[in-house]
């Protein structure tokens, strides 16, 4: 959910955060089990916490999940630390003895994939967008220095199934249960992937959908609006956003996010039409609207990114 370089904690702050977590924070022992709930038959979701990417506990801000077929299990996103990944694996083990055959990352951000290493011993296929490996390579320093990524994360994405440019399969079979994978053109990031479980009509939207939390634009504003158009044509009974509560009101969730992104676009277009510079546009940042959480954290960067994209239109 963060952008590479949004630059929360630096090395020092990061080290301090780790110490705090170990002492008074919310220590996650390796054997702890992540809280999950079954939102549809065989579809389990852990809801991330509505915290800043700078906050203690930021390792647990993304929604994670797994889907159980008759043969095996697919894990969708693994959390923001090795400990979260291990706790997610414990949650899988608590609900099924079937092997984990796929680990799917919806995009490159730390809160969605730093737990990958916990699943290496299961020897799953790691799947992601064709551009995920390159995105991970360029984010490596940030992920290691700021978010404490361990080498296993990079090993998982280096697997042959996620070599650069390798498209994920269009669908995967968990045994009597097929998941449809869609790799999107640049939207939230340049490596967004969604997962649709046809059996229950459940969509794991990754960070193409934020509910309640201010969307974070790293890829393309126009691309994201286009992706929302396409998503709106899908028959979805239940959506698991990247952040925020899962809902059965897919239309309303899409409409709220579209409204935020369209307002952002209109704001920047007006600034450009008035000949305003990027700093002038940032100074006149919009007042928080729509009840979005963490507005101050994401709005300035969204404005900057949108300005850079739209100034050439």
């Amino acid at each position, binding site marked *: 959910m963060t952008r590479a*370089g949004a630059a929360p904690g630096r090395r020092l702050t990061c080290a301090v955060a780790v110490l705090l977590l170990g002492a008074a924070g919310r220590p996650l022992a390796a054997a702890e089990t992540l809280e999950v709930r079954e939102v549809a038959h065989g579809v389990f979701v852990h809801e991330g916490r509505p915290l800043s990417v700078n906050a203690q506990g930021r390792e647990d801000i993304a929604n994670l999940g797994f889907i159980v077929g008759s043969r095996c299990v697919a894990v969708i996103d693994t959390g923001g630390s090795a400990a979260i990944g291990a706790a997610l694996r414990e949650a899988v083990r608590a609900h099924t003895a079937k092997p984990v055959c796929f680990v799917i990352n919806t995009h490159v951000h730390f809160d969605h994939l730093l737990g990958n290493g916990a699943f290496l011993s299961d020897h799953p296929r790691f799947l992601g967008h064709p551009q995920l490996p*390159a995105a991970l390579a*360029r984010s490596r*320093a940030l992920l290691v220095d700021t978010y404490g990524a361990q080498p296993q994360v990079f090993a998982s994405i280096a697997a042959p199934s996620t070599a650069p440019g390798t498209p994920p399969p269009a669908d995967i079979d968990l045994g009597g249960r097929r998941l449809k994978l869609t790799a999107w053109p640049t939207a939230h990031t*340049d490596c967004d992937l969604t997962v649709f479980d046809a059996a229950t009509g459940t969509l794991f939207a990754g960070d193409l959908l934020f509910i309640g939390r201010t969307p974070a634009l790293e890829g393309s504003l126009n691309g994201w609006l286009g992706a929302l158009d396409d998503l709106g044509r899908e028959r979805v009974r239940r959506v698991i956003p990247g952040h925020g509560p899962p809902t059965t009101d897919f239309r309303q969730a899409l409409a709220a996010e579209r409204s935020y992104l369209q307002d952002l676009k209109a704001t920047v277009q007006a600034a450009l039409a008035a000949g305003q510079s990027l700093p002038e546009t940032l100074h006149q940042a919009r007042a928080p609207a729509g009840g979005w959480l963490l507005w101050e954290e994401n709005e300035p*960067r969204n404005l*900057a990114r949108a300005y850079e994209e739209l*100034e050439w239109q």
Partner: protein
Amino acid sequence: MTHTRLVPGLVTAAVLLTLPPSGTADETPAVGAWQNMRPHLYGERPISESGDELMTIEAPASTPDPAATAVTVHFGEGLEGRVRQVRVIIDNNPSPLAATFTLRPGLALEALDLRVRIDRYTSVRAIAETTDGQLEMRSAWVNAAGGCSTPPSAAPPGTLGEVRFRPSADGHALQVSIRHPNNSGFQIDPRSGDPIPPHFISRLRLLAGDEVLVDAETGISLSENPTLRLRSRDPMPSPLKLEATDIPSQQLFTATWTASPAAGTR
């Protein structure tokens, strides 16, 4: 005059050769760039660093976009029309000297905006030299990471060398942007996973007739689609011609802006 032009170029080249690319885990930040550059650029000359009246530098403490961080240098009335050169230095970038602007004598500049890549937390400093040899430096601290290795933006690439002029409503400011990847040499192609070779704008000149208004030596610390904005006490002269030099091709991109009668109040 000629040799002062050469020196920053040499310093840039030397720094490029001696500093490792960013992003390796065992690398120590290049904190000493300014100390190393100062004797080359300014010798032992005194440099004033205080007083918001004459000059300020504005940069976001935590940049919304490390690959395109807006830096604005403001000049107070005491400096307007007296600045002959402005250098912008980003201490911890692989190529710290982001740009050297030589200004037409008498140009009453109120503000100079540019957009830069910030590779890691760093001081960003601007040094102005007046026509009578006074040196003023102001600096700001920017917290960011990865700006030199961020992949090309998602915006459609457009036509290389296409130029956009964006005047302010009052006609006193003009933003000039040139469509160019300005590849730093530290980026990875997200599709192939291969390194992208350096390809950047090395010089930007704005001319009013035969007169050079601004002559900027630039480099890989400028963002993709290099952008420069001037704000002057006086309305921008019109027409203005932009010349941009592409490296390594040495191709010259040119475009001309003419104030529309409707735009601007005078």
